[in-house]
């Protein structure tokens, strides 16, 4: 019922309502983003329980700090940023992350973009994705699997848009190498 009433409202408008009058509307924001965030956290952590913990913690942190959110920005980017930080904290705590300085250097002129359009390729890419270093996995999963723009990824990862492009390009090369080997 609540979801129908608020379906036409933007995230930023709901945030304003939660801050000013109705805290229960926060559940609408949780409904809108929980699945996407669980999926994203799972790409980063590769552990469904830990991903769920980090998303729950992120929603709580977002609620506590809701008054610091500027409605001129995109709420989704802000939320993804919090989940990203939570997930990285968990990764560091559990020491399950791969070495971020492991950069694979190889030459390739092939573009993976066309391949990744089909669902089958996305499924396969997800499998390969878990094997690439975290700094490349983050922008690649946000761009191809979460449909985020370079601008949004820049806001989430706190990187200049040029660096986002560079990392995605490099990530595609690494992914191609890994997928070909598998």
């Amino acid at each position: 019922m609540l979801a129908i009433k608020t379906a036409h409202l933007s995230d930023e408008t709901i945030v304003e309502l939660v801050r000013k009058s109705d805290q229960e509307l926060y559940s609408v924001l949780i409904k809108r983003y929980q699945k996407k965030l669980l999926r994203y956290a799972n790409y980063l952590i590769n552990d469904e329980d830990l991903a769920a913990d980090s998303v729950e913690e992120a929603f709580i942190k977002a609620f506590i700090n809701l008054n610091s959110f500027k409605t001129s920005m995109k709420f989704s980017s802000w939320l993804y940023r919090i989940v990203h930080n939570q997930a990285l904290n968990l990764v560091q705590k559990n020491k399950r992350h791969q070495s971020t300085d492991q950069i694979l250097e190889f030459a390739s002129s092939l573009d993976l973009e066309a391949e990744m359009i089909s669902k089958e390729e996305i499924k396969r890419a997800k499998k390969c994705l878990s094997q690439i270093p975290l700094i490349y996995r983050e922008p690649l999963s946000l761009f191809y699997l979460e449909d985020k723009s370079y601008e949004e990824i820049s806001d989430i990862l706190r990187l200049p848009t040029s660096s986002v492009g560079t990392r995605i390009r490099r990530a595609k090369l690494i992914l191609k190498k890994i997928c070909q080997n598998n």
Partner: protein
Amino acid sequence: MSKQLKKTSINLEKNIMDKVKTGAVRMKPRWYFIFGSLALSAGLAGIATVLIFVNNLVFFLLRQHGPMGQWRLQQILDSFTWWLPILALIGIFLGIKLLQKYDFSYKKNFKLVIGGLLISIILASALIDYLGFNEIWSKRRPMRQFYPKWQQAEQGNLELPAGRGRMRRQ
């Protein structure tokens, strides 16, 4: 999405909203963030001010003073207040850390922002030195205390104690 993940997302909403409804988690008030933002700006402005002053003081101390000033480089180096450049370096480090807290830090070329800030500080310090503020400050309170005693003595503001190799002031 796996079954486990679907189940998790259902529980997630309930868990969080229970905490919100029971007041176990509360929103921090708006003033808390306004105060934090003001403190951040004040901290950055404070660090920039200290850096300008410290840098200006370094320029002032390195300048040749009085007749035969060029022969006194060794004396300047011997009595140089080394804590000043150390303080400047700590200030630069803290300033960069504070700048990183701002939203624009990742949208702009951050190296350029830092470079611009450092050049502005050096130019402002050089301007203060050039305009002769050091001569005024080294004679008057409360700034006088920051200037080395030998500098004050040279300008006739401090009487040096008599001792071996020192002449009494007439």
